[in-house]
């Protein structure tokens, strides 16, 4: 167990088991020069690439962190997809669909990035479906009203950005590069969320009430997205030493609180924390104690929508099995046909060496 706090989403203490034996050629027993090279790259704040040797624990930590981020994107599509068919204007419907589509795209970049560490996407997906891998607990809360689309964009994506911007400099190259693209889109999402709340908070009384209610419900869980307080997160140190994590949970949470207080004022909405007050000495906002019992209980699968979210993901996977099987069977058929055609051509020409034709065999594969 390397870290209880993972950036940008939260992990359970239980680690995800990955059978590294299957996918790794290197182990920690590898010769010292490799470890030296790795350490030097980290010391230089340079990038580790998939071809580089890396300690098993580094590979495992990253695989878990990246795949859990991917799972969070995928499960995170659900609360927002809940409002696509009911979005109150065509413009909002269109923006929301584009946003949920972006999240599927983020999931894809991240799964691809995790795959470069040696674990294939179906294995990662299976870890999600069987409950061995976790995703951000925030998505286990219901999106009951349209204003939740605003609160999720502003607070949840806002917290994700605070978490993710430093990750663009994560020591693992494919992860850092994926995060650059993701952050650009996330900041767009956050602005859209803020704009939804702005319209509501400057709208009718019913709309204002809806906006305030959404902020009241999402504020606490959004602050918890940064993970437990530093004192309860002793293993974050290793991630920081590896230049994966750059700031502690509490540092990032503070940055987020400082960012949203003036934004909430601009919205004309209040944040549901009586202890929220500017501290002149610290030059930061103080904020109240968060409900960590609730947090732990949601992480352990007792979130209001935990069962529902997993059920829907499993159903989508199961209902799509026949489609994926058909696509695989078709690809095989096409590959066999291409091979047959190439073979036939061989017999006809008997001149060109077969090594010149591997591309033809890949078509449709």
């Amino acid at each position: 167990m390397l870290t209880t706090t993972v950036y940008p989403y939260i992990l359970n203490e239980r680690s995800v088991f990955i059978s590294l034996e299957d996918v790794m050629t290197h182990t920690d027993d590898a010769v010292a020069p490799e470890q030296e090279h790795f350490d030097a790259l980290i010391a230089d704040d340079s990038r580790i690439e998939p071809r580089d040797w890396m300690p098993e624990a580094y590979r495992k930590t990253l695989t878990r962190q990246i795949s859990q981020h991917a799972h969070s994107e995928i499960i995170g599509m659900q609360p927002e997809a809940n409002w696509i068919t009911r979005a109150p204007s065509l413009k909002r419907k269109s923006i929301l669909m584009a946003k949920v589509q972006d999240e599927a795209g983020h999931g894809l970049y991240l799964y691809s990035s995790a795959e470069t560490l040696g674990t294939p996407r179906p294995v990662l997906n299976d870890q999600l479906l069987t409950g061995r891998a976790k995703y951000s607990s925030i998505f286990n809360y219901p999106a009951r009203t349209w204003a939740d689309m605003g609160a999720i964009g502003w607070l949840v994506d806002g917290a994700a950005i605070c978490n993710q911007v430093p990750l663009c400099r994560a020591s693992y190259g494919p992860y850092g590069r994926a995060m650059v693209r993701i952050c650009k889109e996330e900041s767009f999402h956050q602005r859209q969320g803020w704009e939804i709340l702005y319209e509501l908070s400057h709208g009718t009384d019913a709309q204002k009430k809806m906006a305030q209610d959404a902020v009241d419900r999402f504020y606490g869980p959004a602050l918890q997205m940064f993970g437990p307080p530093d004192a309860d997160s002793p293993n974050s140190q290793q991630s920081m030493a590896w230049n994966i994590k750059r700031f502690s949970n509490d540092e990032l949470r503070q940055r987020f609180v400082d960012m949203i207080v003036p934004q909430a004022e601009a919205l004309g909405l209040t944040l549901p924390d009586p202890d929220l007050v500017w501290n002149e000495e610290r030059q930061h906002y103080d904020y109240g104690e968060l409900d960590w019992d609730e947090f732990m209980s949601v992480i352990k699968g007792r979130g209001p929508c935990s069962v529902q979210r997993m059920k829907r993901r499993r159903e989508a996977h199961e209902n799509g099995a026949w489609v994926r099987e058909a696509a695989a069977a078709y690809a095989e058929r096409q590959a066999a046909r291409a091979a047959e055609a190439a073979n036939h051509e061989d017999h006809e020409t008997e001149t060109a060496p077969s090594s010149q034709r591997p591309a033809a065999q890949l078509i449709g594969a």
Partner: protein
Amino acid sequence: MSTFASQESATKISAGESISSESIAESGATASEDVAQYAMRLGDDALILSQRLGWWIARAPELEEDIALSNIALDLIGHARFLLTYAGTAWNKSEDDLAYFRPEEEFRSCRLVEQENGDFGQTIARQLIFSMYQYELYKALAESSDPTLAAIADKAVKEVEYHVDHASQWILRLGLGTEESRRRIAAGLEYMWPYVEELFTDDELIDRLDGVAVRPSSLEEAAMRGIRSVLAEAELEVPEVAQARLTSEVRDGSYSEHRGYILAEMQSLARQHPGATW
């Protein structure tokens, strides 16, 4: 058309230029009653199909397909916004007035797009039929004498070309994939087939809009050739099922039982807050 590009144009909209529903609203182009009715038909088809496809997001067989189906839904809602905005110029109504505050019987969508998603095969069957039809429609409409309709169609046809490709690629995979996929896509095609004829049915509105609207019957040959050719390649039969007759002389009076449910969901929030902005 480029000959006139430097000349002053009656509207700001012309083929080949980027358009948005805002630019249509601000262009000064005003649809006549008949043109508005026509634009509303096409816009409603796009809107209802987008609404149907939106359901698939976070439910598709693969992540890539969540992205593909939402992309198609996004293209369609874009078309709907252009067309409804243009239609609304006739009555001083916005796209949202038309989408959210028109009652069921005033929608003009065809029955095909209203049909239930069913399984992925059923959805893809609808996509194949509708995309082939819509591709031929927009291709012809890009030559419309109405510059706004022509500009909308010119932009949309490029997108629909991909929708045709997406549906065709899936028809091949499902038709030639496994026994189960073959059975399911065949069932999907049978389910959707009764509503094909309606797409190619002319009526008086079309007669009155000669040169502006595309005559649906003129699209049948090319669209059906496209559909038959994909089905043949996928070794699938063209379904032999009866066509569902229209319940009224004109397309505008016929719609499915599904429409009410689609609109009840789509319009519910907007109608709880009449006059609100979002």
